[in-house]
């Protein structure tokens, strides 16, 4: 049994230590906001937070996640009022929507580090998150809007 904390709840899973966190979340725990896209850290659709950092869950072996705190999009604090999620809704970013949960988790991590990112900084941090539908112009706009909202709150 491997024990970890997911969205504030202690969970135990009976899987091999090499299993990526992504597949523990999806197939063992039924948490589906982390998506399988590539399996090799090329698309970012599986992005979650481990101890507060954005991580590709397809690359994090569960044995190494044991004892750590995992947050998926489902477990975000203040989810219904979250400024990044609100900006994503207001700008109607999604088309198919499959990559967007990963995009959002990456963007939250970006804004935690840089409260008002430039386009260049957005490019640097968000380029690992692929969107096949091409919603990049709206992702950019939503991040700027979320940054402005957060700044306005302060």
């Amino acid at each position: 049994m491997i024990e970890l904390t997911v969205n504030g709840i202690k969970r135990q899973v009976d899987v091999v230590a090499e299993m990526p966190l992504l597949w523990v979340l999806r197939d063992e725990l039924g948490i589906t906001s982390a998506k399988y896209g590539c399996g090799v850290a090329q698309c970012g659709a599986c992005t979650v937070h481990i101890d507060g950092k954005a991580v590709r869950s397809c690359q994090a072996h569960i044995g190494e996640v044991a004892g750590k705190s995992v947050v998926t999009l489902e477990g975000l604090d203040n989810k219904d009022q979250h400024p990044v999620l609100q900006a994503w809704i207001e700008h109607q970013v999604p088309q198919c929507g499959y990559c967007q949960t990963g995009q959002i988790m990456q963007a939250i991590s970006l804004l935690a580090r840089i409260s008002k990112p430039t386009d260049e900084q957005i490019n640097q941090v968000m380029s690992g998150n692929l969107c096949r539908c091409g919603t990049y112009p709206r992702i950019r706009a939503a991040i700027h809007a979320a940054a402005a909202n957060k700044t306005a709150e302060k």
Partner: protein
Amino acid sequence: MGHMQRLSRRAFVFGSAAIAGGVAFGAYGRAEAVAPASDNPLAAGLGPNSVSFNPWVEISPDKITLIAQHADIGQGVGSVQPIMIAEEMDLDPGQFEIRFAGPSPAYFNTGFADEFAPFVAADQSPAAEEARAKTLEWLRQSGLQMTGGSSSVPDTYEKLRVAGAVARETLKAAAAKRSGVAVADLRTQSGHVILPDGSKIAYVALAAEASKIPPMLDAQPRDPSKWRMLGKPMMRLDVRAKVMGELKFGIDMKMDGMLYAAVKLNPAKGQPLKSYDASKARVMPGVKNILEIKNGVAVIATNSWYAMKAVDAIACEWAPSAYPAEQAEHWKVLESSFKPEFLGKEWKKIGDIETGLKTGKLVEAEYRAPYVAHQPLEPLNGIGLVTDKGMEIWVGHQSPRFVQYVAATAIGLKPEQVTFHNQWTGGSFGHRLEYENVRVLAEIANQMKGTPIKLVFSREEDFLQDIPRQIAIARHRGSIDKGKIVAADLQLASTAPLKGLLERSGTPSKDPDGQLAAGLWNVYYDIPNFRATSYEAQGLSPSTTWRSVGASTSGFFTESFIDELIHAAGLDPMQARIAMCTVPHYRKVLETVAEMSDWKGPLGSGRGRGVAFVESFGTPTAEVVEVTATPDGIRIDKVWVAADVGKVVDPVNFENQVQGGVVWGLGHAINCELTYAKGAVQQTNYNHHEAMRIYQCPVIEVRGLENDPKVRGVGEPPVPPAAPALANAIFAATGKRIREMPFNKFIDFV
């Protein structure tokens, strides 16, 4: 009816078949919305005291359900289609549930009538409209239920608004009967019929009575000036659930007792497995079973990852490919396909092409476009359950009836024994018109009778089995005399994407592939001597429809060549196109993009703009791309797009779709190709086939025009002009003419 009737389109449309009742012109779909109740597939599933007026509206005592006829592949079908009905029914978002249509001929796609009839979109002559009406009748007879060809709005714009109007008026009639108030004194608002005294009757409370009166089939949809939601910025109904991570895609579905499957299939597409050794896999963690299927092996496990790891450990010996094993051979076959024996069709001939080519200065150029992959971010998947009664399948797919046919055929059932549940999909771009996951899932579930099986393709397997976009070479010739283009002879050799898809759908066609005319013959410039000819290469990789299909390659070839001719004539690329454009409202599209981009000719050293104009799926689309040649390579600074769709029904989504189409067109033109070695594609993940990421994404300004007499789609039309506009911009900035995709083989990009 079982599988789609095999009717020869040519015989039907262009033979002597008489169309009963004459020919209907204009918007399609009204006839479907007022079809007899016996044709309504919802009737069989209705509960007590419930009513369904047509195949799109169902009201029970506790809820209203609206049917999204098409598959939602990210284009917004799951929002705009119910909203078209809700607009007419005076329903508000939140007052109805949405369900995807099941397989039924009632959901045949009227929107294909324009695309399949052999007339260019701008031709609105009586002959063209008659051919379209006959094509519509063929579609009706064959029951072709398919999402594609940017037809989701064109198919449903009239149909769903009429369906909603019929529902509204019938509910009013039921309320009139109950209350004794004349229908003329009733109105509807927010899911209720409102009586003159202000009292309200909920639609759900009228379901039982409405089921007992004949539907009001003469109901008319409202004039667009009365719209509350359509045509105005509105919130897509699926946005919130997608952002909150609450929307379940097909890959997220789970069933009690379900096991997980992964597969390894012969990378030589369509060829069988010869032998395999699963001794290592058999003892790996989580493995429950190892199955042999027609063209590979499957592992059944307790978790997708266990299944993928174990299937990786199986050593397989494969039968060789039926097409050339090496990429260089594919190109050689194409090069030698410009011959009469491979003729697809001479699609258009104007004037005297041979004399025209001898007049003035001759310009010749050859262009190439490689195989490319679809690779939506959600890999192919599905859940299947086979029991003694038949098969149930949960999969996101664009062709419900063909899913039934393919799954049934794979395991010896009849199509009607396959129950299909469509799912939200994480993209398609044409991928979910193909069937490999469906066929394989049927085989696996059939060997695991009684257990629900969730099949997920690994990304690598998805790449290896992805039936690619057509590969093509164009050999174009033209001539310039006295500052004018006097001749253009456009010749194309290509694999045939639509023919391949139809064959795999069980409805093979002997007609020339109409998608090879797209972008080749629908050229709206005043060129006195013009010819467009397609050749269909034989024996190459199967190919299929990829976002914008034929126009994705021919749009690049034609608009690059036109640009070369214009430069050879010493003209301005924008002004020359505007001057040559023969269709007034298409010219307006070019004028609009010129105005948006403030086009004033060359930008000066190291910078350049290119323009391209392509009509695909009836939507004329013009794009201007602006680039800077930096020391590190080409940087795309900005893109302007104008497209005329007749009516912009969902403006925010319209902009999003157009931007996405531009990103798709540019990204794949820059860095994507699939190449074969030893019969398998060499690119098996996104690091080998990347397309555009955010750092390369320019600002994209979009404007929708509404001058076309018909309502058109927008999912695909922004794609074809993107590549040629970029190539033309690179030429303007650097003097370098790139005639082959992907462009990064010839020039660096930032």
